[in-house]
């Protein structure tokens, strides 16, 4: 072995560079923000977190050994005059070896597929959550560039802020009066699209009181970045108190105020003591012609029901 000082430098430089790179990557991962997706506060988010963990482990089982194997192979068979490892330039086939690396991925993907299919049915967003308590319904409309939340049972509405009772399922009905957006409260569970002409259903629940945040996840143009909102999960009593306060202290949302609200533009947080009857259905059916929604078929399986004019008649209570 020849140990010239040059070769020492050639080792130090890559080592330092690697360390700096790793430090650069790791430091910001530890500093600052909170891993909301991995820190769920409700049953849906928790299942999704579990699934993320399971799938990561299943994948890692294959890729970590492969990464190590690659490093070993590259090191061992590098072209050095004094490399004594075997060299077989014509060895290019081995049925046994190939059978192994066809089967291993097939098994892993098979396992993952089974897990995925189970969770896909379990976590179908329109499936009600198991709970003794009846769900609260909240109607969500994404507008350009704000969120309108209507609470049909309470008769109030809010913009860019959402209050829910903790420890009770929430049934979100979602639509859009704008290009489609996506409704996402990471700590409660994954997102779902809001689309005009269609009402989607998403059940979520906050297990604990607390403040979480949500956002619009699908690009809708200029001020799409402003579509963040706070989610306040409070006790049942506080929720009722809050509803009463809103009822007493704010103005009603009228057809006219809605029209202004729906125009493109950003908005501050706002509260409304009431909202026009059937407004949500009006938004959904804005483009419905002859009782036919444009989203023919594709939403039906999810229970994201297509609202036809008939439904509107029924639900306009």
């Amino acid at each position: 072995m020849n140990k010239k000082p040059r070769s020492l430098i050639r080792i130090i430089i890559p080592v330092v560079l690697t360390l700096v790179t790793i430090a650069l990557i790791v430091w910001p991962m530890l500093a600052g923000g909170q891993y909301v997706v991995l820190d769920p506060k409700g049953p849906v988010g928790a299942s999704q977190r579990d699934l993320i963990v399971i799938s990561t482990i299943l994948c890692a089982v294959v890729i970590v050994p492969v990464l190590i194997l690659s490093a070993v192979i590259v090191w061992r068979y590098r072209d050095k005059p004094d490399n004594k490892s075997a060299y077989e330039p014509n060895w290019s086939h081995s049925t046994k070896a190939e059978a192994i690396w066809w089967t291993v991925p097939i098994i892993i993907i098979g396992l993952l597929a089974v897990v995925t299919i189970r969770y896909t049915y379990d976590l179908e967003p329109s499936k009600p959550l198991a709970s003794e308590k009846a769900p609260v319904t909240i109607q969500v409309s994404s507008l350009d560039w704000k969120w309108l939340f209507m609470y049909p049972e309470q008769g109030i509405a809010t913009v860019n802020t959402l209050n829910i009772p903790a420890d009770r399922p929430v049934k979100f009905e979602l639509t859009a009066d704008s290009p489609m957006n996506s409704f996402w409260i990471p700590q409660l569970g994954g997102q779902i699209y809001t689309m005009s002409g269609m009402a989607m259903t998403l059940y979520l629940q906050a297990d604990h009181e607390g403040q979480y945040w949500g956002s619009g996840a699908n690009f809708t143009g200029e001020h799409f970045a402003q579509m963040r909102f706070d989610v306040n999960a409070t006790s049942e009593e506080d929720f009722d108190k809050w509803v009463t306060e809103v009822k007493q202290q704010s103005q009603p949302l009228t057809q006219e105020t809605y029209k202004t609200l729906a125009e493109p533009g950003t908005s501050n947080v706002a509260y409304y003591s009431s909202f026009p009857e059937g407004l949500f259905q009006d938004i959904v059916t804005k483009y419905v012609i002859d009782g036919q929604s444009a989203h023919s078929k594709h939403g039906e399986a999810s229970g994201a029901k297509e609202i036809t004019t008939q439904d509107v008649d029924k639900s306009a209570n």
Partner: protein
Amino acid sequence: MLERLKEFASEFFVTGDPLIYGADVAIGITMITIVAVLTYFKKWGWLWRNWLTTVDHKKIGIMYIIASIIMLFRGGVDALMMRLQLAMPNMDFLHPEHYNQVFTTHGTIMILFMAMPFMFGLFNVIVPLQIGARDVAFPFLNALSFWLFFLGAMLFNLSFVIGGSPDAGWLSYPPLSELSHSPGVGQNFYIWGIQISGIGSLATGINFLVTIIKMRAPGMKWMKMPMFTWSVFSTCIIILFAFPILTVTLALLFLDRFAGAHFFTLDLGGNPMMYINLIWMWGHPEVYIVVLPAFGVFSEIVSTFSKKKLFGYKSMVFAMLIISFLSFFTWAHHFFTMGSGADVNAFFAVTTMLIAIPTGVKIFNWLFTMFRGRIRMDTPMLWTLAFIPCFIVGGMTGVMLSVAPADFQFHNSYFLIAHFHQVLIGGVVFGYFAGLYYWWPKMFGFQLPEKLGKWAFWTWNIGFYVCFMPQYAVGLMGMTRRLSTYGWDTGWWELNFVSTIGAFLMGVGFLFQVAQIADGIRKYKTLKASGDPWGGRTLEWSIPSPAPEYNFAITPRGDDIDEWWEEKERRAKGIYPPEQPLEPIHMPKNSAIPFIMSICWFVAGFGFVFGWLWMAILGLAGVGICMIARSFSYDTDYYIPVDEIKRTEASLRGSV
């Protein structure tokens, strides 16, 4: 009059942004310089005869690659601008509309005007040489494809300074891309830029399919074809099925915008969902279109630089064909969260995961090609080695995304951005770089200086991880894609700041590459390459570098997968092939029609963009005239006489 002119100009030219004025000046200066240099050195004739009218597949390939690298620069500057805007919360570098234009053009340019032409460039330069052919099946069409791509790309790029850029995302979902939400001309530029170049892409797909089916050297059975050629073949099959979908989709979108149709608008019964389905039926296969040829490149390089036969040839072929088939059954994974129901989601989740199986097999085969080999670390091999871990990790996060209920949390977040850049940069860009370095001597006859290349390699790679690893993390923190700004309260800034550092490191890597090429050109006399500088295995290494116009003086045979390697072994044993007499070689003549016809398309496209029907009709008429002119040109080929072949061979071989 003057007032009206002023008003027109203020709409026609993009105004009001210092960045754009800067670009205007830069473009102006570049144009003037190019014209001045060409005139001063009296190179107009040379340019016309050797490049603008050429039908030589090697030159066309080189032009594709040059254009693609320029577009990499443009798309890269876009990327850096975005990263700069995101480096800190509430940065006021780009306004939201401008940011939206930038990510739209970045995505579109990178996929359609950088990755695609780079790929076509490699097809053109290498496939005929690898299969022992003198040309592609339709050389005229090949030139036309290039010029259509080029002028389509130029039309798209023009939107930046004239009329305004599109800003509805690289897939342009309605209604954002409809007249109601994008009343300007930007979206028209998008439609016509892609449409014009798309015709070229489809034609190239057909051209290479036929070339590979029909023009292989005698003896080259299907299962003797080099792996890169196989990858091109599977890619062209996807192109053949995917690009017509794109053409139709964009045509319908254009009819919505231009003719008041309602295919994708909700009012009057249109359906935006249909657009989303259609665009992804093209869009998902498209990512396999760009990555499969990279797999082919890696296969060639791994076996050459390990001095060993490719392991598991049949598996590799089979895996590639399965991937091209499966790529058409995954598109709905782009909208798992759109309420399609558990049945549909489960189906598309599983079909998506299935692709990981053949891909995994390919990785194992590459590893076992190196196993018991002798691995040399020249730059093409370095990029290949860097690809392996990068693609393994990117593939893994892809599988994680395909787990439908988990995707509810990943979708539209930076986790996704990190994933697709990892496979697109780690797979596609690294792959094409590897291919470029590998075949550079074959294209230009000299080798690139390795030292700067290694600097480029390391800065690119370190930059890559520093840029994209934090994005997985910030995605799990809830940061969504396409955000032009965010607040301090989000806790995202550290990750974004580091990510931006990484992006700029990649930019430095690119500069090293430019320096490397410049240095190589400066010293090209001392860097002269032999016909076979790497100890190659396939037929392209059996001829001089750069390849003569007619490629092979004598049609080679292709009896073995590594024909040239076997030939070298035979020669080492003293077995030489029997001398064959030279014969005159039949070649296609240059033609100006592809260039002129594409310019007519450009004019027509420009007319459609601004709704100037007269101009569109003028352009289309020009296209028609070109077609007629072509159908009446009978004198389209010639023979290279034996003397000239002898002279060329002697002078080229002299330097071997």
